[in-house]
């Protein structure tokens, strides 16, 4: 299990970071698109129709792209004060239980995401000549990455229960947030 974990951790670290960095590029692209829209409206007197839909989609992608990284690095908002009172053993059990639940909902949504994508094939985008399914393609990708992270978290939780003397926390956490 240890070797599988090391391998999976490498894959996850790289994919989470790549997805997060892509989100950074999308953010700047969003600014450019919205500024372009303003310039066209006020300076060229010509309202573009596509910027709104495109920038919105980029924003949704940003959220989905950041999600695996946020889950892996524990960057999501949560209340820890009650749990901090528990013994380390109880905390490990609780953590495993919570991560199993997360994995469950991620699997549910991963399975649903294919149907979601297919339904998108029947709808054309408002301003661009293709189906919204292409906008939706981030959903299965993000839930697949989340699934891998979920498996990694559970492996870590199991190992820390089996061998409590070793440190199974993620070592390569990168904390970008202020």
């Amino acid at each position, binding site marked *: 299990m240890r070797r599988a974990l090391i391998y999976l951790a490498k894959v996850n670290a790289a994919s989470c970071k790549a997805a*997060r*960095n892509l*989100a*950074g*590029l*999308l*953010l*700047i692209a*969003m*600014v450019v698109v*919205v*500024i372009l*829209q*303003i310039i066209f409206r006020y300076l060229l007197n010509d309202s573009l129709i596509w910027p*709104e839909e495109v*920038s*919105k*989609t980029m*924003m*949704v992608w*940003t*959220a*989905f*792209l*950041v*999600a695996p*990284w*946020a*889950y892996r690095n524990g*960057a*999501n*908002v*949560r*209340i*820890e*004060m*009650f*749990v901090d009172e528990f013994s380390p053993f109880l905390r490990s059990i*609780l*953590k495993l*239980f*919570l991560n199993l*639940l*997360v994995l*469950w*909902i991620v699997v*549910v*949504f991963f399975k*649903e*995401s294919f*149907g*979601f994508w297919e339904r998108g094939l029947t709808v054309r985008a408002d301003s661009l000549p293709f189906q919204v399914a292409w906008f*939706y393609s981030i*959903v299965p990708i993000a839930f697949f990455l989340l699934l891998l992270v979920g498996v990694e978290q559970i492996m870590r939780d199991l190992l820390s229960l089996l061998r409590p003397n070793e440190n199974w926390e993620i070592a390569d956490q990168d904390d*970008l*947030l*202020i």
Partner: protein
Amino acid sequence: MSLSYFWIFVFLLAAGMPVVFALLIGPGLSLTIDGEQVFHKALLSRLYNGMDSFPLMALPFFVLAGQIMNSGGITRSIVDFSQSMIGHVRGGLAQVNICSSLLFAGLSGSAVADASALGKIFIPAMHQNGYSRSFAAAITAASSVIGPIIPPSGIMILYAFIMNVSVAGLFAAGLVPGLMIAAGLMLMTNYLARKRGYPVANRRATWPERGAAFKTSLPALLTPVILLGGIFGGVFTPTEAAAVAAAYALIITVFVLRTLKLRDLFPVFVSSAAQSGIILLLVGASVTFAWIITVSGLAGTVADGMLGISQNILVLLLLLNIFLLLIGMFLDAGPAVLVLGPVLGPMFIDLGVHPLHFAIVMCVNVTVGLATPPMGLVLFVSANVSGEKLEKIAWQMLPFLAVEILIIFLITYFPEISLALPRLLGFA
């Protein structure tokens, strides 16, 4: 459907589950228990469509603008300007801290960003000047609350989105309450400074010195003028104004002040995207949760419960404030607004409370909650920056919290404080 989703949500939250997952697992598990898994696909499409909104995009843009200005040292110029204006009074640095928070609030929409940016400057400086670290941290935390109340404001964008009210209207409604909090904190600081003999930071700056400081900080001070002028004047939507603010911050820091190099920018983008992405997914999950709240009729149940206690709107508003302050002690402002807005809003609006007035009461409450122990994000940030114990800071916070709670009550019982400006500008 049953209300089991809500109890699952509360249990998971208390157990330390990230809020975003608790918001999705509650309804998901509840539907499974009720044998209604067919609705799982509706949860997923609401998660996606919940984020697919143009007004919501103001949020990542304001986060980006704030981060660029912080990294580009614009915060510093605001501090220098405040210092030149009021650094000479008793308790000068504490007053400068509040004044900087007020000016910074016009650029940034986040209390945590304010506490972190200004804390790094003020806490060491105040300590050197003879203040205790815990007092310096407390005034930083207390004044950073102004950030999301004076527009632009992340929390108001979230509220406007989930409750379908105008962002511009909410921004206008927040201006006077924000100024009142600043004034209240300054009065309290003045009283404490005289009582405790806090030092004067500087000699009085001459007008030429003030002029020089004003000139340096002008790019920063112009930001709120462009933003609010653009939004209230109907030139931009709030989202466009936020994009303009980000582009403006970029141009100022990279090309005019040259405090940021092009290669420094990528980490700023990534960090802003990461912060925004986390909040956006929370928004999507909250929309999903809000849908379940509507379907299950939870808002009605809560309304019945509250109306059972009293029918008097004044009493109900008092209960609302107590409840929100308690919630604010444990829950971050964003999730609090996203989850509780749809539960509590309909009842008060039905009872005749103006939607913008209710919005301000709620936003100010949860924002002040950020600075209340035991669970307050800005308190954590200022504890972290100062290296001081949370309890000591919390103790020093008490007079300032008293001021903020007093102002919450003024806002609650005098609706005109928040409604006059939006009415004048035609938003209410």
